[in-house]
């Protein structure tokens, strides 16, 4: 080594004005890609879980002796997976050529639209899942000498509608209505649980970028 490290350093930075600080507004490319990639990855995981469950459910339900309910749940899951797949494909249509801020803002808008649509869909989807669950429980209870039979023996005067306990029908109806009414809240809770972290990251990144927009074109 000819020169000392001090000399190399000094000569290398002889003219500090040649050091160019990056422009702040252009700096979020990588970060925004990370956030969106993470979101896509989570959507994909969700999709795979739904597909796996749609295969497992009929098998599991078959062994419980309630194959039809298993098939219904599987069908519903497949429909949900198909819809999620379509939504995921639509994120690719967003303009990636725009600035990071514009891109992330359009992702945020896309997300809001998707969630709004989903909130409408889950109003019917959740009650359906609930009905399948109730029907599964009822079918397993209603076997010879099962729970339903025991209850019938214990309370022989309970009202039956078409061989179904009135009380069970009321519970089912109230539950279904409850699912319909609270579907939005349940969906939001569900989302927070699964995607809360990445949604917060998206929001905070956009907020940071908005904050930095004030420093535009300063760093040259």
């Amino acid at each position, binding site marked *: *080594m000819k020169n000392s490290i001090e000399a190399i350093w000094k000569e290398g930075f002889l003219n500090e004005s*040649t050091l*160019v600080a990056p422009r702040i507004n252009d700096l979020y490319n990588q970060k925004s890609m990370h956030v969106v990639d993470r979101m896509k990855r989570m959507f994909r995981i969700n999709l795979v879980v739904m597909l796996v469950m749609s295969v497992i459910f009929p098998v599991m339900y078959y062994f419980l002796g309630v194959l039809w309910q298993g098939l219904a749940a599987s069908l519903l899951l497949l429909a949900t997976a198909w819809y999620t797949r379509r939504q995921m494909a639509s994120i690719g249509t967003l303009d990636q050529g725009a600035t990071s801020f514009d891109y992330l803002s359009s992702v945020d808008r896309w997300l809001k639209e998707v969630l709004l649509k989903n909130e409408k869909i889950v109003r019917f989807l959740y009650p359906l899942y609930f009905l399948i669950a109730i029907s599964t429980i009822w079918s397993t209870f209603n076997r010879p000498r099962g729970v339903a039979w025991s209850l019938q023996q214990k309370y022989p005067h309970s009202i039956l509608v078409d061989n179904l306990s009135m009380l069970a029908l009321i519970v089912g109806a109230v539950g279904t209505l409850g699912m319909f009414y609270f579907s939005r809240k349940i969906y939001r809770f569900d989302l927070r649980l699964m995607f809360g972290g990445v949604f917060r990251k998206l929001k905070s990144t956009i907020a940071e970028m908005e*904050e930095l927009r*004030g420093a535009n074109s300063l760093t040259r």
Partner: protein
Amino acid sequence: MSNDFYQLSILPYAAILIKICRAYTSSQEDFEDYYQEVCLQVYRSRESFREQCKWSTWVYRISLNVCLTLLKKKQRNGQIYFTSDVLPETSSAQNSAFESEPLNQLYAAIRRLSEVDRALIILYLEEKPYQEIADILGTSANNIAVRINRIKERLKKIMDEKFN
């Protein structure tokens, strides 16, 4: 971030911030990301500054903490492409200052040091007094000189092995 804050409180230290960020990154994208994060964290922490040290010390301390945090995060995510045995591509930053070959070689050698040693040597090369280096790194000034000598020896060895 207001224009004034950037102009008055960050821009005067931009040169050393660039030099620090370069020591922890091996691509232009990473370098810009680190610099961005440093500016943002300096801005965010401006109200925590209690004037117990110089503003410049505060800025350097934050910049080093940010670089170390980001580097650790990247290492966890497996996004570091070079190991201590393989030197990364050197000429990455779009700065004419970084066109100097010996300087790029020096940077490549610096990147082979431990995270703290990188900070130490850059502050030393920037001719910061030992006490200020100690303040920035949160250590005592006593062993700084000894440590710097060791780092310099190591850098010389790396550069001799790799480039001569």
